[in-house]
C-alpha cells in the first residue's frame, strides 16, 4: 500500500514537472519569445535580401569599390554571391524591370567574376578602395583590436583613435586624415558604334542543349560587353534579355533556347543590328541520328 502511495506521489510530481516545463516552453517560445533587435543581413527575408543586393549594386555603380561591394555581399551569407546577383538580375528582367535598375547588378556580377572594377575607383567621389567601415558579422571588439593594430598605429600618429566602448560590435573606426580633393565624375563608358554581325556559326555538339542560340557581343577591342539588350522575335512572340547575366560564360554572353522549325529575328537594341531568319540548324550525330544543333552569333562594334 505504501509503495502504491509512493508511486502515486512520484507520478504526480513528474506530471507537475512536465506541466511546468510545457508552460515554460509555451511562454518562452510563443507568448514571449526572444526578440531580435540586432539582426544581421544574413537572416533577412528573401525579398529584403534582393533589395539589399540592389542597394549594394547601386552603391557600387557610384563608387566602383569592388572590395567593399564584395564585403557587403558577404554579409548576406550567400553560397554563391555572383550566381545570386546574376539570378536576381534575370528575375528582374523577367519582371519587366528597367535596364537602369538591372544593369548595376549585372555589372557588379561581371566585375566580381573578372576580379576587377570595370571603372577605376579613383575616378569617383570615393577614393578609399580598401579601407572602409562595412561591418563584419564575425568581427568582435577584441578581434578588431587584434586585427586592426597596424592600421590603428598608423592612424593614431595623426589623430586620436576613438574608444571602443559600445556594447554592440562596432564599425571599424577609421580616420582618414588626408583631405582628397573631389575628382571629376567619370561616367561608365557606354558602347560606341553599332554592333555588326561578324560571325554566324552552327554548333553541332551533342553535349550542348539542343537549339541553343548563343550571343557574344564585343566592342572594337574585342572585349566582351555586358548589359546590351537583345530582342528575339518570332511569329507568335518576343523575348528580351541582356548580355552579361552569365558572367561565368563571358561578360558579353547571352543565350536563348529556340524551338525547332520556328524562324526567329534577332535585334541588338543598342546599335540596331538586325539578323532575320534565324533557325536551329539540323545536325547529325556519329550514329546518324539527326538533332537540332545550336547557333552562335557574334557581334562586334567597329
Amino acid at each position, binding site marked *: 500500500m505504501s509503495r502504491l502511495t509512493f508511486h502515486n506521489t512520484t507520478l504526480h510530481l513528474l506530471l*507537475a514537472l512536465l506541466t*511546468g516545463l510545457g508552460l*515554460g*516552453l509555451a*511562454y518562452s517560445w510563443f507568448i514571449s519569445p526572444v526578440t531580435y533587435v540586432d539582426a*544581421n543581413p544574413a*537572416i*533577412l527575408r528573401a525579398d529584403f535580401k534582393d533589395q539589399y543586393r540592389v542597394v549594394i549594386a*547601386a552603391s557600387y555603380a557610384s563608387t566602383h569599390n569592388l572590395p567593399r561591394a564584395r564585403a557587403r555581399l558577404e554579409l548576406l551569407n550567400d553560397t554563391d554571391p555572383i550566381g545570386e546577383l546574376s539570378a536576381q538580375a534575370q528575375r528582374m528582367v523577367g519582371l519587366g524591370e528597367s535596364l537602369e535598375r538591372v544593369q548595376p547588378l549585372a555589372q557588379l556580377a561581371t566585375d566580381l567574376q573578372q576580379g576587377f572594377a570595370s571603372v577605376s575607383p579613383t575616378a569617383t567621389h570615393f577614393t578609399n578602395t580598401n579601407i572602409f567601415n562595412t561591418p563584419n558579422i564575425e568581427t568582435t571588439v577584441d578581434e578588431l583590436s587584434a586585427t586592426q593594430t597596424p592600421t590603428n598605429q598608423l592612424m593614431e600618429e595623426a589623430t586620436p583613435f576613438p574608444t571602443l566602448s559600445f556594447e554592440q560590435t562596432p564599425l571599424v573606426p577609421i580616420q582618414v586624415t588626408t583631405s582628397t580633393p573631389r575628382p571629376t565624375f567619370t561616367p561608365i563608358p557606354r558602347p560606341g558604334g553599332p554592333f555588326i554581325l561578324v560571325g554566324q556559326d552552327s554548333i553541332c555538339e551533342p553535349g550542348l542543349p539542343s537549339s541553343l542560340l548563343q550571343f557574344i557581343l564585343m566592342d572594337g577591342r574585342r572585349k566582351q560587353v555586358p548589359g546590351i539588350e537583345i530582342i528575339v522575335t518570332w511569329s507568335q512572340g518576343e523575348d528580351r534579355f541582356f548580355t552579361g547575366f552569365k558572367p561565368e560564360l563571358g561578360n558579353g554572353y547571352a543565350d536563348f533556347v529556340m524551338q525547332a522549325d520556328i524562324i526567329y529575328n534577332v535585334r541588338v537594341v543598342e546599335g540596331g543590328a538586325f539578323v532575320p531568319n534565324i533557325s536551329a540548324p539540323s545536325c547529325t550525330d556519329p550514329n546518324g541520328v539527326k538533332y537540332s544543333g545550336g547557333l552562335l552569333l557574334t557581334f562586334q562594334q567597329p
Partner: protein
Amino acid sequence: MTSSNLIKIAIAISIGIALGLIYGWVIDPIEYTDVPPNILREDYRVDYVLMVAEAFQNDHNPETAARHLASLGSEPPATITTSALEYANRNGFTQNEILALQNLLTAMQMIQPPGINNP
C-alpha cells in the same frame, strides 16, 4: 491529497516552468530567419544608409533613395539619415562618407513623407 503533497506539486511545476523558460529563452530560443531590415543592428543599418547615400551620389534620385530607406522602418527618411549621420560622426567615418550622408540628408529633408498632405 495532503497539503505537503500540494506544496511538492507546486514546487515541481515551478521547477518545470523555470526549466522550460531556460530552455526556450537560452538553450534553444526561437531562431529568426526571415526578418525585416528594421531590426538590423545599428552598424548594419548605418552601412545600408551609407550605400543609399553612395548610390544617390550617382543617380541623384531622391525618390529611389527614400524608397530604399523606407525598408528600414516607418520613420521618415530624413530621421533615418540623421541617425546614420550621427553614428558616422561618432565612429570616425571618412569625410567622403559623411559628405555623402549629408547630401542624402539634404535631399531627404526635401521629401514630403507619405500620408502628410500639404495645407
